[in-house]
């Protein structure tokens, strides 16, 4: 039966696919471990920085920094979306992009024409952008092609940041946004990305990075540790306000970096899960095809036997 040969072919194809998805799963697992390690390795820096900011904020009475400037009207927003460069990672990109889009819909969409005028002359913002605009900066090829498909305007596409982001790469981007923010060119910056909560849980979120919120809330285990510690009288050099002025940009930079790193870890987890599912599904498919093949073979044998027995009976 021709059907049998077809089944053999399909089974072979399923086997090959399973081999590929299994390999991809293994690669994603290895990458995940590396990314996770990197994320954990950076934690002391982030924690300590937050601790220092906290201490210094207490030492300075009135805190005022260009990065904390709260614009009277949120007119020119920036949304940085972190998607992946490569696909085959399940719902990862879809989740991030959906969250980003929902965020965009909540705020009026940008008009390309008003954009140009604004860049040349910040004062005209009241005329052209009274409704507020959001420019989208897209990291990752997947997100960019999806937004293009939707016809959603993208200010810029960034695809050269690698899967394991280096601080320098993110640093440049963060500095650029900070400079524009301080110059008054933009009024807020948010990042849409997949937040890494644990190996089993990731969440697509939109977080505002600029302007800096006044209360840099410490994580619970933090305040606990400090509760035990007695109040220490520090010697500051230079004075607290000056150190703080330098610390705050560092906090913003590290938040950008954290987002990128979270996204990298989450992407690998998503890919791992997707490829595991694909491998399992291929296994089921192979089982099903094998069953069908055996049945077809058995049917053929039975038919042949019937033929022979029929023939023999006719002769007898």
């Amino acid at each position: 039966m021709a059907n049998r040969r077809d089944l053999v072919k399909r089974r072979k194809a399923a086997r090959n696919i399973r081999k590929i998805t299994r390999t991809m799963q293994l690669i994603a697992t290895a990458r995940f471990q590396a990314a996770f390690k990197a994320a954990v390795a950076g934690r002391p820096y982030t924690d300590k920085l937050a601790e220092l900011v906290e201490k210094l904020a207490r030492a300075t009475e009135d805190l005022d920094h260009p990065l904390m400037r709260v614009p009277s009207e949120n007119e020119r927003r920036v949304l940085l979306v972190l998607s992946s460069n490569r696909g085959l990672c399940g719902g990862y990109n879809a989740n991030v992009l959906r969250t980003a889009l929902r965020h965009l819909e909540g705020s009026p969409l940008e008009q390309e024409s008003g954009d140009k005028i604004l860049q040349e002359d910040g004062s005209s913002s009241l005329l052209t952008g009274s409704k507020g605009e959001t420019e989208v900066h897209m990291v990752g090829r997947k997100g960019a092609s999806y937004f293009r498909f939707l016809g959603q305007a993208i200010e810029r596409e960034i695809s050269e940041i690698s899967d394991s982001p280096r601080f320098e790469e993110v640093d440049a981007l963060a500095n650029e946004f900070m400079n524009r923010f301080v110059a008054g060119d933009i009024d807020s910056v948010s990042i849409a990305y997949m937040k890494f909560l644990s190996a089993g849980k990731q969440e697509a979120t939109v977080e505002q990075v600029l302007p800096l919120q006044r209360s840099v809330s410490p994580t619970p285990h933090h305040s606990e540790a400090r509760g035990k510690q007695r109040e220490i009288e520090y010697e500051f050099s230079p004075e607290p306000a000056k150190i703080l002025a330098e610390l705050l940009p560092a906090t913003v930079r590290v938040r950008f970096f954290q987002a990128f790193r979270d996204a990298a870890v989450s992407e690998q987890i998503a890919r791992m899960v997707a490829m595991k599912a694909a491998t399992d599904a291929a296994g089921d498919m192979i089982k099903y095809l094998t069953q069908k093949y055996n049945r077809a073979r058995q049917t053929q044998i039975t038919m042949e036997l019937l033929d022979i027995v029929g023939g023999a009976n006719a002769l007898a």
Partner: protein
Amino acid sequence: MADSNLFSDAKTFSCSVVTPEKIVLECAARFVALPAHDGEIGLLRGRAPLVCKLAIGKLRVQTEAGMEIFYVDGGFAEMADNELTVLTEDARRAEEIDRGEVEELLEKARARAAGDPAARLEREKAIERARMQLRVLA
């Protein structure tokens, strides 16, 4: 490590150097020289609590095993309870710095256009970075 008894026999304090990417160093130190924003600061066990801003420069850590030298790209240092934490966005061991590479960087930085004040600041910073890395090597 965390005991703050000044009269104990121990002569070392804990010292860690961390960057956003990783923990560069975590060890017990006898002496540390920090590149503070206004000059070098030497630290020994029992130092009064200090928070200070760092400049781009050379960080020396004297451990039981010997002297370790790092290049740090600014940042902050906190010393409290005989625990020193150096926070910097880039820290490299002297052995990890490649002279040829840095010299190339210096050339590139020098060749940079210095039009508006911002660009000039950037250029100066880049030159400073390369120069300090060379000095760490020397």
